[in-house]
C-alpha cells in the first residue's frame, strides 16, 4: 500500500514550507522538502551601497535578523580590513545572544510545544493557577460559542497521543504562556543595544552605533537574570519532562550524521576564539571548517544559474518553470557532502572539543538524567535537548560579556568603504551555520550571496540525487495515521526550519 501525504503548508515554523512524504507499508519511503517562497534578495542587493547590506539582509528573516546583520558586518569588516571596537564586539555578542535566547524559547514552546503538550486537557484543569484557570475558561467559552474556529490558534490540531501526565502537561501549558512574555523580554533586552528588535538598527561595520553605559549594562543584567531563572526553572525541566514522556523520539529523526558549525561569539573582544566553537564532524571525525569547501547545487532547485558554484562566485537566476525542480532552496554541500547545522551540530562540535569542558559536562549530565548515550542525540529529542542546553550556556555567558564591557568606552571604529573588496562573514544563527559573501565593485555591491542554516537542513536533492538532511531524517519514519501525520511534523519541527531565511 502506498500513499502520499502533503504537509503543505507546514505551520509553526517560519515561512512557507511544503513537505511531501511517500508512505509505503506504514513507513516513509521518500520525502521531498520544498521552499515555497522566493524574493530575490541577492538581486536586490546588487548595485546598492555596501552599508545597505546589514539593513537589507536582516529583512531576509524577522526571526533571525540579528544574525544576518552580523554575517553582513563580518563580511564587510573582512572587505574593509577593519577591526571592530572592543565594546562594539561585546555589545554585538549581547544582541545576538538575546536573539538566540528569544528564538530557542519561542521554538520549544510556541512552535514545537503544541506537538507534545495537550491543550485540550485544559478544560479539566481544577488547580489554583489564575493564568491556567483563565485559559480554561476562555477555551470552554470558545468551544461553546459559534466562533468559526473555536480556541484558535490552539485548535484544531492533529489527533494524536500528547503529554498524558496531567501535572507535567499543565506545567508546560503555564510555561507556554510565560514563554510569550519571556521571548518578548529577550527582545527588549537585546534592544538595549540594538535600538529595536526585530531588525536591529545599530549594527554597523566597526561595531555598533549605540553607546555602552553603566545603566545599560544594569538594565541588560536585570532582564538577563529573569530569563536565566526561566530557563533553569521551566525550559530545561520541560524538555526533560517531554523527553521522558516521548522516549521513542530519541530513536526517530536521525539525520545525515554529518554536522557543521561555523562558530560564533568571540569569547572576548579581540579574541579569535569563539564561545560556540567551529568544526565539521564527518563520519564521526572532527575537522576544521574550510570556507572553500562550500558549494551550492541547483539541479532540483528553481534556478537556471550554474550549479556547484562556490558562494563567492554564486548566481541566483530564478526559473519558476524549471523541469524536474521542486524547491526554491538551493542545495548547499560541504566537499560534496550533506551537512546538518543548528544547535545540535554546535553542541556536538563543542562536545568533541577537549577545550570545552563545560558543554561536555552539561551534555553528560542531561544524558545521565535521561538514561541515554551521546549517540542518541542525533534524533528529534536530541535536537530539542541541545537547544535547551545551549540556551542556558549562552545566557550564563552573557554575564561574563557584560562584566567585560567598559562603560562609556568606544563602541565603533571608523572606516572608509573601499572602491573594491571581497569578504565573507561566517557566524551562527539560532538555526545554524550562516554565511554571507560580498564582492564590492566601484564602491557598490557587485555580488552578494547568502547560504543560510535552513538552506542546509531543508535542502532538496543535489546534482547527484542525494536528499538533504531533513529528507534523510524523514526516510524510514513510521507514520501510524496518514490523516494525522504527527510523527512527520515532529521530525520536521525538530530542525526549527526557517524558510524566509532558506530562500531569500
Amino acid at each position, binding site marked *: 500500500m502506498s500513499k502520499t501525504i*502533503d*504537509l*503543505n*503548508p507546514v*505551520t*509553526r515554523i*517560519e*515561512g*512557507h514550507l511544503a513537505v511531501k512524504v511517500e508512505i509505503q507499508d506504514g513507513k516513509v519511503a521518500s520525502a521531498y522538502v520544498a521552499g*515555497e*517562497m*522566493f*524574493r*530575490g534578495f541577492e538581486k*536586490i542587493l*546588487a*548595485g546598492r*551601497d555596501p*552599508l545597505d547590506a546589514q*539593513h537589507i539582509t536582516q*529583512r531576509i*528573516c*524577522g*526571526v533571525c535578523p540579528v544574525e544576518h546583520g552580523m554575517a553582513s558586518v563580518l563580511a564587510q569588516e573582512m572587505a574593509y580590513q577593519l577591526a571592530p571596537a572592543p565594546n562594539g564586539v561585546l555589545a554585538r555578542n549581547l544582541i545576538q545572544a538575546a536573539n538566540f535566547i528569544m528564538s530557542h524559547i519561542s521554538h520549544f514552546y510556541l*512552535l514545537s510545544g503544541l506537538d507534545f503538550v495537550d*491543550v485540550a486537557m485544559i478544560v479539566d484543569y481544577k488547580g489554583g493557577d489564575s493564568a491556567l484557570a*483563565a485559559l480554561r475558561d*476562555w477555551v470552554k467559552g*470558545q468551544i461553546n460559542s459559534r466562533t468559526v*474556529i473555536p480556541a*484558535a*490558534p490552539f485548535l*484544531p*490540531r*492533529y489527533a494524536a497521543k500528547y503529554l498524558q501526565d496531567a501535572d507535567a502537561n499543565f506545567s508546560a501549558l503555564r510555561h507556554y504562556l510565560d514563554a510569550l512574555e519571556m*521571548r*518578548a523580554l529577550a*527582545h*527588549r533586552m537585546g*534592544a*538595549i543595544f*540594538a535600538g529595536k*528588535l*526585530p*531588525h536591529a*538598527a*545599530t549594527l*554597523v561595520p566597526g561595531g555598533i*552605533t*549605540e553607546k555602552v553605559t553603566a545603566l545599560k549594562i544594569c538594565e541588560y543584567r536585570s532582564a538577563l537574570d529573569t530569563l536565566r531563572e526561566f530557563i533553569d526553572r521551566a525550559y530545561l525541566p520541560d524538555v526533560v519532562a517531554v523527553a521522558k514522556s516521548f522516549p521513542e523520539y530519541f530513536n526517530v529523526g536521525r539525520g545525515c550524521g554529518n554536522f557543521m558549525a561555523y562558530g560564533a561569539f568571540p569569547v572576548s573582544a579581540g579574541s579569535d576564539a569563539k564561545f560556540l566553537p567551529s568544526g565539521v564532524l564527518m563520519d564521526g571525525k572532527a575537522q576544521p571548517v574550510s570556507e572553500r569547501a562550500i558549494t551550492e547545487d541547483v539541479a532540483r532547485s*528553481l534556478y537556471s544559474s550554474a550549479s556547484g558554484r562556490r558562494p563567492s562566485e554564486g548566481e541566483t537566476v530564478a526559473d519558476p518553470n524549471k523541469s524536474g525542480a521542486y524547491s*526554491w532552496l538551493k542545495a548547499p554541500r560541504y566537499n560534496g557532502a550533506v551537512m546538518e547545522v543548528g544547535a545540535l551540530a554546535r553542541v556536538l562540535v563543542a562536545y568533541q572539543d577537549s577545550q570545552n569542558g563545560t558543554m561536555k559536562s552539561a551534555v553528560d549530565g542531561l544524558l545521565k538524567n535521561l538514561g541515554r548515550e551521546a549517540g542518541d542525540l542525533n534524533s528529534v529529542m536530541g535536537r530539542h535537548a541541545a537547544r535547551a542546553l545551549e540556551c542556558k550556556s549562552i545566557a550564563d555567558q552573557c554575564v561574563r560579556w557584560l562584566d567585560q564591557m567598559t562603560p562609556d568606552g*568606544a563602541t*565603533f571604529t*571608523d572606516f*572608509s*568603504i573601499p572602491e573594491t573588496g571581497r569578504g565573507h562573514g561566517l557566524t551562527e544563527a539560532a538555526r545554524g551555520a550562516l554565511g554571507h559573501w560580498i564582492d564590492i565593485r566601484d564602491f557598490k555591491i557587485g555580488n552578494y550571496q547568502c547560504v543560510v542554516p535552513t538552506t542546509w537542513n531543508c535542502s532538496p536533492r543535489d546534482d547527484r540525487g542525494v536528499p538533504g538532511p531533513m529528507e534523510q531524517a524523514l526516510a524510514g519514519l513510521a507514520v501510524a495515521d496518514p490523516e494525522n*501525520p504527527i510523527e512527520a*511534523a515532529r521530525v520536521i519541527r525538530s530542525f526549527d526550519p526557517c524558510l*524566509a531565511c532558506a530562500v531569500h
Partner: protein
Amino acid sequence: MNSLSRRSFIELSTKLCALMGLGAGAIPRVAEAVEELASGNAPVLWLQGQSCSGCSVSLLDADAIAPAHLITRYINLSFHQTLSATTGTQAVETVNKIIAAGGYILVVEGAVPAAMPRACAFGGEPFGEQLIRAAKAAKAVVAVGSCASFGGIPGAENNPTGAISAVQHLKNQGVSTPAILIPGCPCHPDWLLGTLTHVLKVGIPPLDALGRPKAFFSRLMHDQCARFPDYEREKFAKTFGDEGCLFKLGCLGPITHTDCALRQWNGGVNSCIRAGAPCTGCGGEQFAAKANLPFITKKRAAQQQG
C-alpha cells in the same frame, strides 16, 4: 461612547469610498461593513505572502497588551501560519472554512509576486489568488508592514519577482474591501494593536492620503526627534557613535511620518535614533524602493581624501 451613529458611519464610509476611488454605490456596503465591525468581536485571519514574519514577531513583542492575553482574550486569531496548531491539509481546510464564513478582519503581511506567481504559495495555491479570495470575504483588510503596504524590500528596484504590495494587488484585481495600511519594518506592535482595537470597537480610524492611520503617521519624525535641538544648532554627527543630529549620516527623519521617536520600541527601551542609528524611513512609501537612495550614508575613501 464607543459606538458611532448611523450618520457618522455613512460619513466615514463616504470618505473611505472617496479615499479608495470607489463610486457612491459602494457607500452602503462599506457602511454596513464598518457598522458590523463596531458591534462584534470579529475574528482575525492572518495571511503571509512574501514576508519575513518580522511583523508577526514584532506583534509578539507587544507591551501595551501582554501577548498571552492578546491571543486568548482580545482577538480571535482564527489562523496564523506561525502560531496555529493546525498544519498541512487541515490548515488549508481551516483557512477555507474561515473564508467561507466571512466577516473577519484580514491581516496581511508581505508582498505579492505579481510577475512570478510561483514565487509564493500556500497549500499549492499562489498567494496572490488566496489573498483575493480572502480579501473579498473580509470586513476589512489590514496591511501590516512595509511589504504589504508599499512593496517593501521584496518590491524594491531590481527585484526579480515583480513584487507589489498586497494592497496594490487587491486594487489591481478590483477588490474593493476597505484597506488600512500600517507600514514599518517591522510594524510597531502599538500601531497594529491600536488600529485593530479601533476597527473592532469603533470602526475604521481616520486615515491619511496613503491610507495610514493618522493617529500614528501624521507627524514628521524629525519634529519629534530628541536630536532636533542639535539640528537647530547645526551640531551634526560626522560618523557613527558621534553626538549630534544624524542628518549627515543619511537620516530620513526629515521626510518620514512616524511617531517612533516619541513612542520608542520594545516596551519603550530604545529606538533607532536614540541608539545613534539614522532613521531608514521604514514607515514611508519609498522605504528601500530605490537602489540609489541608501539606508545610511558614509563618505567614500576617495571623497574623504579629497
